[in-house]
């Protein structure tokens, strides 16, 4: 195993440190956005976020102590459970006849958002499915992963939660790509996705299942520079752009951003927290945030590169991809690069469900990084010519993975 700054041994510390930095920035800006007049630093909302970070980080430590083989074995079960949860949520919604979005199970102490867990469930499941498969070259081999993704995606769209639903195919794409899908499919999928957004803008009213507010967000994004659209459909986007643009190089000072203080920016402690960072800390702060997030994603990918276990590799790729797509989508939407969807910024936005599921995913990557894995070649699996007779290994089991437990 390599040693060095980017070795898998060190990377888990890097992951923890970067995630904690992000959480720290998150707590600071949750306080900046939600503080009452004259409230000292950890205000009521900031405290609540601190507690959530503590719980999530506790979860991180616990999960990173568990052998991820356990998750590997139970991948389909976990996926099935989350899928079941999604179905139940949807059934409840339709039984209740409630037309508004229902994304949470309201439990006694806290709320659970199954679609957040679904990201993790899908990563585990796809990694399990794809790990030794050689048939990604053909459409038949890709059919099953696509189905595995499409079913939860459909359920999430019905909730409706478009943002999370769009993360799932991106995870699929990244994992299938690493698992060896042919280039032409990958490029075709990306092209279709890129073309679909203007198409929705044009034929939006004919698309089934698309809610008016979702459509208005897309049309607002497409025409974001028209003054009439600025005030209606693209209001949030416009306010966010004003916040970011007014930041300048060094920002307007912590807690002194006009858009933040005056409350012009909607959802500024959750979806638009990046705008507040860019307003109050300026280009430098925003670039730091982007650097940290990109670093986190790249670390996940380097874990994937360093590990030899295909399951772990796919797991790290999936987690990295999900962080990447969430971060870029969230940051891009605040600047008008992408349409507005309700996606939180991982580790930074206020909210427990996202934090816990992000830390759980990160814990898996950390575990993949630390767990020593050797994949034995078929020669190694041949019975060695040893004085003591070794029980013969059946040929169909020869390619089975053997893991050596380090701890």
């Amino acid at each position, binding site marked *: 195993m390599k040693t060095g700054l980017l070795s898998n041994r060190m990377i888990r510390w890097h992951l923890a440190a970067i995630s904690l930095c992000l959480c720290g920035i998150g707590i600071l800006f949750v306080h900046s956005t939600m503080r009452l007049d004259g409230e000292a630093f950890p205000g009521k909302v900031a405290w609540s976020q601190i507690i959530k970070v503590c719980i999530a980080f506790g979860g991180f430590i616990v999960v990173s102590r568990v052998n991820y083989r356990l998750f590997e074995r139970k991948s389909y079960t976990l996926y099935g459970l989350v899928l079941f949860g999604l179905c139940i949520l949807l059934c409840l919604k339709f039984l*209740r*006849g409630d*037309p508004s979005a229902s994304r949470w199970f309201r439990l006694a102490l806290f709320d659970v958002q199954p679609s957040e867990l679904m990201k993790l469930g899908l990563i585990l499941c796809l990694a399990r499915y794809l790990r030794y498969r050689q048939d990604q070259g053909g459409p038949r081999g890709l059919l099953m992963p696509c189905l595995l993704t499409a079913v939860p995606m459909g359920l999430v769209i019905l909730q409706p939660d478009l943002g999370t639903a769009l993360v799932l195919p991106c995870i699929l794409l*990244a994992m299938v*790509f*690493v*698992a*060896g899908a042919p280039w032409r499919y990958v490029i075709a999928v990306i092209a279709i996705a890129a073309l679909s957004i203007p198409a929705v803008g044009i034929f939006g009213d004919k698309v089934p299942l698309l*809610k*008016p*507010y979702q459509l208005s967000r897309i049309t607002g994004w497409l025409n974001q520079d028209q003054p009439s659209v600025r005030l209606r459909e693209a209001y949030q986007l416009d306010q966010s*752009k*004003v*916040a*970011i*643009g*007014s*930041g*300048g*190089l060094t920002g307007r000072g912590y807690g002194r*951003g*006009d*858009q933040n*203080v*005056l*409350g*012009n920016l909607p959802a500024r402690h959750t979806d638009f927290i990046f705008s507040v960072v*860019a*307003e109050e800390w*300026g*280009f430098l702060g*925003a*670039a730091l945030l*982007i*650097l940290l*997030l*990109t670093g986190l*994603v*790249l670390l996940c*990918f*380097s874990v*994937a*590169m360093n590990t030899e276990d295909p399951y772990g*590799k796919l797991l790290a*790729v999936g987690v*990295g*991809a999900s962080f*990447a797509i969430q971060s*870029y989508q969230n*940051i*891009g939407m605040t*600047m008008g*690069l992408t349409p507005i969807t309700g996606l939180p910024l991982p580790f930074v936005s206020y909210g427990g469900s996202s934090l816990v599921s992000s830390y759980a995913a990160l814990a898996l990557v950390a575990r993949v990084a630390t767990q020593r894995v050797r994949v034995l070649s078929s020669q190694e699996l041949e019975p060695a010519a040893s004085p003591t007779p070794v029980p013969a290994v059946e040929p169909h089991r020869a390619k089975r993975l053997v893991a050596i437990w380090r701890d």
Partner: protein
Amino acid sequence: MARTRLKLLMLAVILPALAICWRLWSFQLHPAAHHEYKIRAESAKLRTLQPLRGSILDRRGDVLAESRSGFDVHFVYSDLNPRHIVIEVVCEELARLGDFPSAAEMEAGLAGNIDIGKLESLLRQGLPFKPEWMPLATWIPPAAAERIRRRLGPRRYFRDHFELRAMEDKPLEASQPHFGLWFRPAEVFRMELTLRRLSQSIDRYDAEGLMHRLQLSLQKIEAMVARDIRSDIQSGTDALFTRKKERNSRRIFYRRGHLLAPGISLDSVSRIEYNPDLFPGIRIVDSSRRVYPHGEVFGALTGHLRQLNNQDLKTLEESGRLLDRYPKVSSAEAFAVLRQEALRPNDVVGEGGLEEHYDLSLRGEYGMRLQQVGKNGRSGKLLASLSSTRGNDIHTTIDSKLQELLYRQLWAECAHHGHAAASAALMEIPSGAILASAAYPGYDPNRIRDASYHAEMNAALGHQTSDWLLDRPRSKALYPGSIFKIVTAIAALENGADWEGAVDPLRKYECLVGEQKPFSMRCASRYGHGHLNLYEAFEASCNNYFYYLAARHLSAESFNQWARKLGCGDLTGIDLPPMGGSYDRGFLKNPEGVKGEKALCMYGIGQVQVQMTPLQALRMVGAVATGLKAAPRPWLVKKKTPDKIHTRNKRTAAIIQECMKRVVSDPRGTVHGKSGLEDFNFAAKTGTAQYKSNTPRYHSWLVGYGPLPKPSIAFVVVCEKSRLQGGDACSPIVRELMEYLAAKDPRFRANQEGPANSSGEAGGERR
């Protein structure tokens, strides 16, 4: 292969990060973009501060109109009546199950169950209200109850004051026990109790009145909500989306303050502010009100205020004087330029009277506060401010006591003798300053904006006069009748073709009984006046004499010339807004239109060919009082220069003055012996004008000036559609007037100057 692909994937992650950084750069570090966004972020809202309007004062400084900053009561519906949310949710949940009542029906049923008065008296005594819990809805199925609990459970108001209870017996067809929703009346009827307490603190409204006003406000809110979602309904937007928007819009309006009771007293304010806990959802808001302390007495003279109408808005917009709600200026200096003569769309301007004529001066100038204000009303930095300037006060020449006296007297006379209307005006000679200008019926400018006031006045005055909004002394043109004989006599003395190029005042004509040759017209006197010269004819107001004068000695041109010189058919020039049309100008027939002797005869006695407003009559008599040197122009605030008059015959003025003096002092004069007016030292002329043939009702005039020999005051009194003739109708009013004037200036008493008929240079000429 996987390694290469991972590297590509890493590249695919780095590239968007770079794109985002580039975008960030273009926003934050590109100077123009950064500047624009910074300006937008710092952009503050400019609130304009309403100036206080100047006062209108009389000559002693008494207030005729002033703006008082007062207090209005506003309500915030969400705080006043929090139960509406509970009821809305309960109704919504029940409606899903079938045919259940609407929120309004449930409210009505709720109110029908409870006696608020009793509830309030019990609460005031500190007694617990029995029953403490009452049912709002019964037989709620378990599923609905569960949903209600889930939706409302987090609300503290619901948790504290409502309770879902399992009913002991269930309906026959139901398999599960049902629920009832119970509530605590004492808290749930917060709105009703608050309004009752409020009505006890504000004397002007009772609880029902306040509730009615509240309902009207709620109707207005519903109209505004409907307007908000109208475009969505028209464009066929998703019903769910529209309903959500409607709910949000209503919620926003319910959280705002709306006017409940305007103009409450300081006493009420202190009562409400002292115990804010007793008045949840009630706010006191500063406001300014225009107050006219004298009410109807000065109504037409001061005018009133009205909202800007569409025409005004258009004019203002074209001239660039319409101030936006949030004008786009960034400094106090820029606003100082913008605010000149500027108005806001919901402003008021003066209408009629001094309020309109001196509107610009009275108005004052807006102030402003440029402050950062967030979306939800959070306020930030104050960037600039400019205080508003109060409007100028207007000092008029009016004597409010005299005006009050005149108004009361006019009112009393109209009530007693059944005149349709009456007006009176006084002017200083020779300056032309108006001392009083009163008319009955007048209107109360304090109430002019109430629709009910108009209905009330129309009902009360409908059979007499419909133009009670008119400023009668200025704008009500009437046939002058015999007071026009002043013009006839002057014209005859100046232009007549008889004696030294003029009429000999001592030349006699005969007045017989009944219809008389050569003009086939009759005198007002039943028995005829016999032979009379000008003095005798004038004092007895003999029509026959003036027929001769008009038809034999005068042409229509000379009538017209002198009538114009004395101010007939022309604006008086008073500093009040002209009414337009023939209102203020009166009417004077073109000389070409006056054909034949009969028409000239009618001209001579002030019928048919001429109409005058009381102020025009005042100008005419004022000119006589100055010795026909000038026709004074009446004014109230800014002095006007009188129009010079040139007379050919130097004795004309003296003759006319003597004639008018004899009307009072000579026993044959039409004023002599009426209400004891001969006790006063003044000159006068009466007039009785028919306004419709064969009607026993007249416009009765009395014009005059005093004290003699150096007059300082001219006056006019006119009773419209009176049953009495000139002297009889007007003399009681003039008597009061003279008493008042004599109390100030003893020269108005006849005995101060000795016997009145012994003075005057023309006295000896009587034959």
